[in-house]
């Protein structure tokens, strides 16, 4: 079915009824045990987040002096006001930059990955496996390792400290190509392509009108992962950018955190800023989750 699952019969159509009704065999006990376990893990996952929320409501002094897991003097709104006012209100541009880098970068990157993965899965040509191997090699290279050579490259064409110097490298996602190939192989039946060709549809049209839609669940996954990767990457912008109006939010917070001992108020502001910066991630996830669910179901094409 896909490289992710080990079922035979690669293109067996999926059933749409993933949300099978609850089996009668699900005893109350197992429901409680299972949900209980999930709750315990959720507490583990969310406890530090809760700490962050609590911290963001405190004054600088209370941050170290009061009990970390409960509220003391509630100052969230003061902190938020200070956050958005600090340094002539630079935080909001940071947030918007991040959305642009991550949102547009992931969108373009996903499309490029989908095209490449589709080509690698659906066309037979010389050097195909070699190209795929090179892409896989690229998966092994940590993005962090590329920042400096990239800086020198961009300096050659005098393009450092620009939006493009951060944006362009971000659109490359070998992992995305890898996943796309898997999913294209699994979710775009050759029969369908053949039928489209017989109908006289061009390759491009077939891809953009049909294949892309079939691959949409995979693309949502790729988009989500790449969005987060770009969002969290601050090394590349750090190396590339000098103008703090171009900073993404992670780099901005990092810079603040680095100046904490000179300006202690930055401690609470960088924590508040971190909390605020998680919100777009959560929203993105929630929004995508809907498409994702729908996409997964839709991926079960009739063939």
């Amino acid at each position: 079915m896909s490289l992710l699952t080990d079922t035979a019969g690669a293109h067996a159509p999926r059933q749409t009824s993933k949300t099978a009704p609850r089996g009668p065999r699900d005893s109350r006990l197992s429901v409680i045990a299972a949900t209980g376990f999930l709750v315990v893990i959720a507490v583990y996952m969310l406890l530090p987040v809760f700490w962050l929320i609590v911290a963001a409501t405190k004054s600088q002094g209370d941050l170290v002096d009061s009990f970390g897991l409960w509220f003391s003097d509630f100052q969230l709104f003061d902190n938020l006001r200070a956050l958005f006012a600090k340094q002539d209100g630079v935080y909001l541009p940071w947030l918007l930059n991040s959305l642009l880098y991550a949102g547009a970068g992931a969108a373009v990157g996903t499309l490029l990955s989908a095209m490449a993965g589709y080509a690698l899965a659906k066309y037979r040509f010389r050097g195909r496996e070699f190209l795929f191997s090179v892409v896989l090699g690229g998966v092994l290279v940590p993005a962090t390792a590329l920042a400096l050579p990239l800086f020198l490259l961009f300096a050659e064409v005098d393009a450092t400290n620009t939006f493009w110097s951060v944006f362009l490298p971000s659109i490359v996602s070998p992992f995305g190509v890898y996943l796309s190939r898997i999913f294209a192989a699994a979710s775009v039946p050759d029969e369908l392509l053949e039928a489209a060709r017989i109908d006289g549809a061009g390759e491009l049209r077939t891809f953009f009108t049909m294949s892309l839609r079939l691959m949409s669940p995979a693309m949502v996954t790729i988009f989500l992962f790449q969005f987060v990767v770009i969002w969290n990457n601050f090394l590349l912008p750090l190396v590339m950018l000098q103008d703090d109006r171009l900073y993404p939010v992670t780099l901005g917070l990092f810079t603040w955190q680095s100046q904490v001992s000179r300006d202690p108020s930055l401690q609470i502001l960088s924590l508040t800023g971190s909390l605020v910066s998680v919100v777009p991630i959560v929203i993105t996830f929630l929004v995508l989750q809907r498409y994702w669910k729908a996409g997964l179901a839709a991926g079960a094409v009739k063939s």
Partner: protein
Amino acid sequence: MSLRTHRPAFRRALVALVALPLLATAACGGSGTEDGASGEQATCEKSDGKVKLTYWSWIPGVDKAVAEWNRQNPDIQVTVKSTPTGNTGTYQNMSNALKAGNAPDLGQIEYDSLASFRLQEGLTDIASCAGVKEAQGDFVDWTWSQVTFGADGKDGVWAVPQDTGPMALFYRKDLFEKHGIAVPKTWDEYYEAAKKLKKADPKAYMTHFSQTDPNWFSGLLWQKGANMFAQEGDAWKVDVDSPAAGEVADYWQKMIDEKLVATDLQGFSPALHKAWNNGEVATWVSAAWGYSTIRDNAKATAGKWAVAPMPQWSAGENKAGNWGGSTTAVMGKSKHPYEAAQFALWLNTDPKALEILNREGGLYPAATAGLELAALKKPVDFYDGQTVFDVFADASKNVTTDWTFGPTMTDTYRFMGDGIAGALGGQGTLEDALRTADAKTVDSLEKQSLEVAK
């Protein structure tokens, strides 16, 4: 006061992230053969027409001083870029920019990093620029020896001193009085005071000893005259584990062994600030800029701290160490060294500029004229009205001049930090730490193809 010099705990962590460059940084090393300006007397001539200069600095409010310069000098316009502190990324960015050929004309560089930038051929020798050599008398002696690498200008002048971190003893006056402890004048008295404090309050520590601040420890060595480096002819002499340094190490090892100092509190960490607020830690041997670190992070203790001269190794002496401080350097390959040098001199000697830098950025000036600033003569509220800067002004004059930082100081600090961490964790001693740091520093110099005197 500008904290740019020390490496606060979290900050230092962050630093690392910055440079994650691994391959990356790696990749950009000395790309190809570079014929840098090192050792060459740059011709320093005035450029024709209007000149634009770029300057990187992390002093808060430095833009106000720059604006003043731009107003007075319409033909030499300076654009300042506010950057993260040196070790958190700016140095890395400067190195990268030097390699890429788009470095700024001027940069803020700390004393302990100057040699490393010179080694990278990242500095311009401004000795032949008008007014530079003559400026020597305007600065506290030891700072000039730092920017000339001890050669008194014969080997070039590589930067203009900006601010300093003369060291003194911050102590909790209230706790000392409560427990009947006299302010220690010598290190022996400091040790006795530590014992007395522990006896009076078993939970209290005399101070914290942090593995994240090896440059603090080197400030202590500086006071002792335990020079870690020297230039001998064409070779470097490495003496990190000199007998004098050994004495300092043994002294603090004793403090650690007797649990008189906190070994689990790292510099500039929230935990340390909490311990200050709680009265768990009673003193801090620190630099002039430290006055605002305590003031801003231990608000609960307002009025309870005082400042005294650094304890001495022999009674009657009056020696101080230095921790931090930085320079304004004309970077390598600047096209306008003359104009850049003029700006650097103005920024760090002009009374108006000094006043702005002190007011906005809290700089403790390297210029002797700066020590006379009105703001540095005033009583400070947080220290219960004590005129604390008098103490630092004295200290500043008593910092010994023949201290040399090595050209791979980042490595040396790192080796010291690792060794100190071991000693604090009960593996090995500080003396071991120095011995290992010495051997590894030699190794690190040799890897840079530098000659090491045996």
